């Protein structure tokens, strides 16, 4: 029997790893998740068989509650609240690891345990608790129960240091005494670890939460792997290590996608809720969402209709050939690409025409103002390539604006607007563009040619 279970475990592990592999690409991700689920199911079934149903009633109760709560919440929650949901579930995992250690500790109470067990027990308790508490704070921040702003206070570093030292001291004590330290010792240890989790996440801004959650996810992975040593379970070791390692890679990738080093995210005490605040053209702060070429690439590749809106920035960057290459790449995937040409885009009449003709863009893909404004509301993405004034909604609705009354391209009516420019600087008219703050807009900063080339490469790689 046990041999069968062992072999089933191997299958489970293979399925989980393969599932993770498939999760790498949008095309296979769903299948990958199913594989991982299958592997998990086999592994859990194996455990139930192995425990021969001892205590199945209480286990059943626990599983039932957990499954119902977990699935119900997962299905009910709004799409936008997904990140905090992930945080919560991660916290649950960390909490479970810490609880397992706690139970084991009290079961063994008094009798001394071997070094492997004592070390792994105390480590999994600490890391699990940190992950648990940290995840809850992350949840509260994202759910806006707590302010998304970084919470800092004087002497913060010192307090953190003290807590960390306390934990280390207690942990060493625990190992040295082979787990036979007085009862309060363990309790204090746990509380200190929980506190550390809270303190760790508090100073981090809401915008950076996804990176933090990913890091806590990999912490939980590590905790679970260590729990594996504690319980002598290769299953836990492997799954935990898998998550610990892949989570680390992911965390780094995520912070890189935000164009920030990880250390900056974690210890920068910097970054605010939902978007980056940058100085707008007028000097006043504008809160915009900076995005990455990879993200935009997915958006473009899975769109039905994309409208390119070229402006003077495309001309300055001489990006016309790159723009055509991107359009070709998208059209190859069945995406419909059109170009909206504003009458005064650029710096001379017909500026965009000259450049796009040079790049061999067929005339029938060029829309003039009226046609473009008919098409834009049905577009999935409006990709604004170095245009600014000609997309400024202030011309429509701010009578005091110097450009009020100029007909503009209604890019804000598209499902998504991505703006390619180098900075928040203004265009010819020298005014701020409220477009950039709209919820459906995001900015891809950088030279237009470089950005468009990056998009082409990213679309190709999908």
């Amino acid at each position, binding site marked *: 029997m046990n041999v069968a279970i062992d072999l089933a475990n191997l299958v489970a592990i293979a399925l989980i790893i393969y599932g993770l592999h498939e999760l790498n690409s949008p095309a296979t991700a769903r299948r990958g998740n199913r594989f991982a689920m299958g592997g998990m199911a086999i592994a859990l079934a194996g455990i139930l068989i192995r425990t021969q149903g001892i205590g199945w009633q209480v286990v059943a109760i626990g599983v039932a509650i957990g499954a119902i709560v977990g699935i119900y919440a997962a299905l009910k929650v709004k799409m936008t609240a997904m990140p905090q949901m992930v945080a919560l579930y991660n916290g649950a995992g960390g909490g479970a690891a810490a609880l397992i250690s706690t139970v084991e500790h009290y079961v063994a109470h008094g009798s001394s345990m071997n070094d492997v067990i004592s070390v792994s027990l105390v480590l999994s308790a600490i890391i699990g608790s940190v992950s648990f508490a940290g995840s809850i704070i992350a949840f509260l921040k994202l759910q806006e129960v707590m302010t998304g702003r970084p919470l800092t206070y004087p002497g913060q570093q010192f307090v953190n240091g003290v807590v960390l030292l306390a934990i280390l001291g207690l942990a060493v004590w625990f190992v040295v005494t082979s787990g036979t330290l007085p009862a309060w010792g363990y309790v204090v240890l746990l509380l200190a670890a929980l506190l550390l989790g809270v303190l760790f996440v508090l100073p981090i801004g809401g915008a950076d939460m996804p990176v933090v959650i990913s890091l806590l996810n990999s912490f939980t992975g590590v905790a679970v792997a260590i729990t594996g040593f504690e319980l002598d379970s290769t299953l836990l070791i492997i799954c935990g290590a898998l998550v610990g390692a892949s989570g680390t890679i992911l965390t780094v990738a995520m912070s890189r996608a935000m164009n920030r080093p990880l250390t900056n995210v974690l210890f920068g005490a910097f970054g605010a809720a939902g978007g980056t605040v940058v100085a707008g053209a007028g000097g006043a702060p504008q809160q915009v969402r900076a995005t990455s070429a990879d993200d935009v690439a997915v958006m473009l590749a899975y769109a039905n209709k994309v409208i390119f809106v070229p402006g*003077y920035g495309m*001309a*300055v960057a*001489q990006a016309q050939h790159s723009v055509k290459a991107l359009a070709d790449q998208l059209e190859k995937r069945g995406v419909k690409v059109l170009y909206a040409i504003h*009458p*005064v885009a*650029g*710096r*001379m*009449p*017909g*500026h965009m025409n*000259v*450049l796009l*003709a*040079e790049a061999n863009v067929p005339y029938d893909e060029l829309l003039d103002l009226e046609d473009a404004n008919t098409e834009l509301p049905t577009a999935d993405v409006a990709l604004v390539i170095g245009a600014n*004034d000609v997309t400024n909604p202030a*011309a429509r609705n701010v009578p005091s604006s*110097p*450009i*009020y*009354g*100029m007909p503009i391209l209604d890019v804000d009516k598209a499902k998504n607007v991505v703006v390619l420019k180098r900075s928040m600087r203004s265009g010819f*008219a020298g005014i701020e563009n409220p477009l950039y703050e709209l919820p459906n807009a995001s900015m891809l900063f950088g030279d237009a040619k470089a950005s468009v080339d990056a998009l082409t490469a990213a679309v190709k790689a999908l």
Partner: protein
Amino acid sequence: MALVPETVARFVKSGLAVAVERGAGSEATFADELYTQAGATTAGDAAALLRDAGVIVTVGRPSDAMLADVRAGSIVVGFLNPLGDPEYLKRLAAAGVTALAMELIPRITRAQSMDALSSQSNISGYKAALLAAAALPKFFPMLTTAAGTIPPAKVLVLGAGVAGLQAIATARRLGAVVSGYDVRAVVKEQVESLGAHFLEFDLGSDAEGAGGYAKELTAEQQERQRAWMVEQIGANDVVITTALVPGRKAPVLISEAAVAAMKPGSVIVDLAAEAGGNCALTVADQTTVSPNGVTIVGTTNLPATMPADASRLYSRNVYALLSPWIKDGTLAIDMDDEVAKGAVVTHDGKVLIGGNA
């Protein structure tokens, strides 16, 4: 032709009655029938038409003879050359008309669609490059052929405003190696945004003035500029000049010495000919050949050589200008409008110029 049938139809739709002089559109390929189809009446008697009209739209300016027929209180729209000929304005005022000078429409964002200077300059720039290519005894593009490699022509565009930029774009399309030059510093990026090279020359100060136009250079700056040009010009096969300073004689950029420095067969197209020319040897409305064999084209009204598109663009500009003032079938200029403040040069018998120009 100041109004094309398409625009006439739009005016008619907004309730105005439009009359067109018979045969006026034929030059621009618009036959009289097209106008009647668009809802206009046509008549042969210009004087009668003028007497009836509340709004008179022309391209150039009505002659003094015509002004005699114009009703007092009517509106005249056209290129009136108000800065060049202040005397004429007095006559307009005397005739009692409200005159709108297309060249004085302010360069504000909202008025871009009314900006006939831009739309006509655009044509001039395009056509200047074509004329230069046609006049040059060589190819513009580089061609490697069995009979040897033909090097590309070198084209220099002086003054990169609307016309200059379009000339750059057109010459580049034809395959020439193009450089541009202007006194305004912002232009460098614009020239480069067309893939051309910008010639840098340090004037000591930026010459950008009001409304995006250039200021006049000091005498010393002009002298230095001309000397520098003598060095630069010999490397080029074609020079297209478009440098203008509103209300002034065009700056002379190409001295006789500079022309002498050019190779025989080279071509200069001087779009500033009407304002005195950017080249010392330019004769307005004539194509001359310098002693050393440089062809100098002193054409003054290039848009007239592309009448169909020139008329189309001009009439859209006029429509954009006038349509906001049409209410319930009548046109009443809102004199508080920023555009009117700039463009109205005579009103109620008074010359208003100086207000915004």
